[in-house]
């Protein structure tokens, strides 16, 4: 009985060693597959102590575009680079920088692309002008029609 137990034990140990080697192989190849070999930046997932500052940072982060995953804001994205951008935003807000100054800092580096906040510029002015013109045209048409009806 005892011998069988002993005979089984090494086999079990062998299986354990195999499992350990298997897990180790996984652990070794993970850094190549995942970008998360470093822990996230300190303020990637940690909120600021001051709730007012955190609210300002959150509002700004929701209007900044993630550069790796371009349909998400950096507040929504789990990409490591978005985490590093959140860290930038939170540490700058904590240092007393204005949210719009931080946005300007990023726009200086990546262009309007990085910002979700609509801005009137040389290329975007028709987006603002066309609806205004349409409303004006409708009001004009309405006014003329009402005037005609009153006359009739």
């Amino acid at each position, binding site marked *: 009985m005892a011998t069988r137990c002993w005979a089984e034990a090494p086999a079990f140990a062998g299986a354990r060693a195999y499992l350990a080697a298997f897990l180790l192989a996984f652990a070794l190849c993970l*850094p190549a597959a995942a970008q998360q070999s470093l822990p996230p*930046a300190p303020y990637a997932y940690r909120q600021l102590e001051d709730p007012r500052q955190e609210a300002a940072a959150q509002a700004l982060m929701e209007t900044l575009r993630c*550069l790796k995953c371009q349909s998400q804001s950096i507040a929504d994205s789990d990409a490591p680079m978005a985490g590093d951008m959140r860290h930038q935003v939170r540490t700058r807000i904590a240092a007393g920088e204005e949210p719009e100054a931080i946005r300007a800092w990023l726009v200086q580096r990546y262009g309007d692309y990085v910002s979700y906040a609509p801005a009137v510029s040389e290329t975007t002015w028709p987006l603002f002008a066309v609806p205004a013109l349409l409303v004006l045209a409708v009001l004009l048409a309405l006014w003329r029609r009402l005037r005609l009806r009153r006359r009739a």
Partner: protein
Amino acid sequence: MRWWWWIPLALFALFLGVAAYQLTQPKDEFIPSTMIGEPLPEFDLRPAAADRPGLSDAYFRDGTPKLLNIWASWCVPCIAEAPQLERLRQSGAEIVGVAIRDRPQDVAGFLARYGNPYSRIGADDLSEVQLGIGSSGVPETFVIDGQGRIIYQHIGDVRAEHVPLLLEKLREAQD
């Protein structure tokens, strides 16, 4: 029915057509840096590898143009561009590396396997330099002139056909 009653419908159809066409077009994922012509931001990075010094912005202001390679050991295209970086080095280019979010042991393993074309490698653990120069991915290669100004940005891995262009940009930066 008057003909101009059809105008709104025609406009709507036009809008649908444009939207449908745009949906079939491949999306350009590259976001070019708008820092070309600007000086490098201030930074001072610890060494990412044991046998190479770290990197600061002051190092670039020695009169010699350099290539600044943004890379990482976890980045697969970086493996593909390693032989081209080696060719650039052999052609006389000085290449300095910025390793994004990387551990020393991973950096050492990568360099041992795929070669080390870098004179210095700084570790950018918070992507500060990457954000500071308007880089949005790995790998990217910047040409920096001898006064520390950003001259040119190459997005994506450096392939054989890009080597002459990068050497040309380095020469231009020298003049």
